[in-house]
């Protein structure tokens, strides 16, 4: 216990120092905010646009006999002289007129309201086939699949952030001399790697959780807890890969070479999970790909991710890394 306490305090101090350095970078903070912000903004703007254009009950009709049946269905039916012309000019998005003995429903923006108008018109005209529109469900269709993809993409983004931050935090400290100064401290070498990987977990984990919660508040994500776990493990895995590649590269190799290798390896792991879900669900990074393909991850990905981070830490402690 004493040994643990001896290690815990300097590890916590180093981790806190790395976290504060990361959060003081405007680029990092903005990058962490973008996924949740853009996803939620896109959802709300899309729903808002649909609310404005897709639910409009206004319909231009050329015949007075249609007014009552359409108004009974909740439409704002308006009698006009040339409904087709109004539709072509964009003054209305749906219109009904009589042409060569049949009713024509014209529309320029397909929506549920258009379908409702068609159903009303077919019933009124006693057409050869009629339409009935079921009431909206809370979560219609295959929305679980779509929300799963959204959660997967957010996890993917933060994993790539993990790779860049894992590589970048070592490269920056190495080139600025901070790493050299830290290595001169009377602390075991593994602690410097451990602190950086722990800092990545404590920065990327909450960012992923909050981003998923923001999207979940707008469009409920099925199995959100599992997405949080998988995404966090993938982010830690990505950070570990980025850190490993940078640690194994010499100082003269620059930043972009090791980074591109790390990114390639990370994407390859996720692609493996996508294409081979039965294998991928057992591995920390690949499990994100397999979950996006529809196979839930196993419970071992969390200890495996921690084990991978520990191996990277041990590898670092055996190297010069300067």
């Amino acid at each position, binding site marked *: 216990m004493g040994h643990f306490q001896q290690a815990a305090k300097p590890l916590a101090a180093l981790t806190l120092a790395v976290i*504060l350095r990361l*959060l*003081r970078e405007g680029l990092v*903070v903005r990058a962490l*905010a973008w996924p949740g*912000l853009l996803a*939620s*903004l896109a*959802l*709300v703007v899309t*729903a*808002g646009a*649909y*609310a404005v254009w*897709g*639910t409009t009950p206004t319909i231009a009709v050329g015949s007075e006999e249609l007014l009552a049946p359409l108004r009974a269905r909740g439409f704002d039916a308006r009698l006009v002289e040339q409904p087709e012309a109004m*539709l*072509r000019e*964009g003054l209305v*998005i749906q219109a009904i007129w009589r*042409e060569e003995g*049949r*009713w*024509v*429903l*014209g*529309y*320029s*923006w*397909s929506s*549920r309201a258009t*379908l409702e108008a*068609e159903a009303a018109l*077919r019933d009124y*005209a*006693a*057409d*050869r*086939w*009629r*339409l*009935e*529109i*079921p009431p*909206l*469900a*809370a979560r*219609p*269709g295959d929305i679980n699949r779509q929300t799963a993809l959204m959660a997967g993409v957010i996890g993917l983004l933060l994993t790539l952030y993990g790779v860049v931050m894992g590589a970048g935090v070592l490269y920056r400290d190495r080139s600025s001399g901070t790493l050299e100064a830290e290595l001169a401290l009377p602390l075991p070498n593994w602690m410097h790697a451990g602190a950086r990987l722990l800092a990545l977990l404590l920065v990327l984990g*909450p*960012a992923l*959780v*909050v981003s998923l*919660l*923001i999207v*979940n*508040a*707008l*469009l*409920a994500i099925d199995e959100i807890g599992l997405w949080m776990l998988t995404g966090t493990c993938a982010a830690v895995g990505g950070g570990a890969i980025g850190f490993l590649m940078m640690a194994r590269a010499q100082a003269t190799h620059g930043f972009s070479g090791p980074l591109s290798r790390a990114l390639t390896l990370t994407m390859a792991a996720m692609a493996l999970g996508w294409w081979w879900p039965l294998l991928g669900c057992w591995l920390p990074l690949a499990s994100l790909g397999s979950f996006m393909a529809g196979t839930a991850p196993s419970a071992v990905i969390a200890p495996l991710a921690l084990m991978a981070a520990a191996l990277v830490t041990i590898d670092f402690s055996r190297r010069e890394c300067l």
Partner: protein
Amino acid sequence: MLAVAHYEMRSHMAGRQGLRFAALALSLLLPLGLLRLPFSNVGRNGKAVPLAPGAVSNSIDPIAPANLPVVSGIVPPQLVGKLLHDANSRVEIVSQSPLRLRAESVPDDLRAALETLPERARVEVRRFRAALRLPGRSLFIAILAVSLLTGPLAEALPGERSRRTLEVLLSAGISRAELIGGKWLAWTISATLTAWLAAAGSCYNNVQAPGWWLAGLPLFIASAVAFGLWLVRLVDDLVGGAAAPMRVLPVVAGVLGLLAQSLQPLSPALAAMVPLGGPLLLAADILVVTPSAVVSAVLGTIVFVTAVLALTARDLDRFDIVTGIKRHGAIGLGAVALLLWWLTVAGPAVWSLAGNAKAVSPIASSLLAGGLVLLGCAAIACAREGVWPWPHVTRRALIGGLLVGVLLAAAGPFSLRFTSAPHWAEALSARLAASATPSLDAPVAALACLAGQAWLFRFGVAGRAGWLVGALLWTLAIAPLDPFAALPAALALGLLGAGAGVQSALIAQAVWTAGAALMPAPLAAAPALAFQTLALTAALAVVTSKAGVPRRQ
């Protein structure tokens, strides 16, 4: 100016570097110009494209049964061989006579199959292209051509400053205007030539018909280069020089483009004159082209470029680095937090406006997410400043919090006082207003919500931009459309937070929330505001009070 342009081109485009840049530009722009998409050039520029009756039925291929539309229910005899049966299909045949379908949508192949029914059709559904003028491929060519200039713009002035060669140039026998003009000319010509090359490809391959947009391209590029040079005029590092145009230019161009588009129905000439926006519309081929519009675009660009380059040249001699001001940073962080808060808490109500009220998520999940967002932003603000709230609660803070909380609770739960509001506003505002005194049915969400509000607005923002700014931001967060309903409470909590500590304000709002749970119905407007004002007075008293008994001298 030409000499400077030549120098600029030689220093950045000579040798391998120049070849790489040219190869990158051509490899991106040429395919963009040449690639023809299957649905392009169909019904553009407001021309309606009606589907001819019977044309849809051609989409069915009777030889390939796997492509037949799928339905559930009993397939009528007239449609056997034209429809496939699948019990899981979301299109259901519910009755045979008359034939009635239950479906959320009717795909084109199903319509085509139904068109083969023997009886005469009494209804026809016809799709028209929306009467919108859609942008052509030239919009993307213009945007990409300007994006490729990010690196050269970073080198043009920030690179010169970082290498200390700008002083050498300024001491040469050329005017500031000639120096800036030469740099502007070099990159404008370079980007215009590559854009025209891509445009020639799109005209050659019939992707986009030639038009006035060819003249719009150089106008937009010239405006963008001038504006980009102005943005980086005081930056002295390459990364900042690349980041500034990359972040600011698209936003400004987009906003001005929208402004120009909104002015177009009034006057195309006026729209064309909008800096950046008018040339963007012309380059995108969505401006209604009249002779006056073209002349306006040219004149507007000349005036804009001249003015911006003049301002840039004037600032060349400045060597002070522009740094962000702490106050503005706090307001910026608060604004981002506010936007995320609105999206998370009020955003779900948009589903009901879009026609599906069942899709609106419970308020508790929104408050939890919103509270965590505010906590996260507050933590980042504190980490960047190195200042954290002190967890210790003094007796004064406790008493003050309880007193103000009880007075606010006497007003009942927070509610809006709309006299008349549109339906969409009520739905969104109701969710925001509920976050001032969140329901205790979801205690974790309520705690996160209250802690986030206190920590961000009454500590993070208040500490850097003043308690009044924090209070106003909180008012905008809770009641953006009815701020006066929340203002006294906002000022009371903000003042308490500033004078007695953020813990005191948190206690006050928690007591208010607990009181609101006991008194579900809010008071009428006048008494509620009276209690809120009393709470503000109490907060003022707490802040100005001193501990201990005054000593007699």
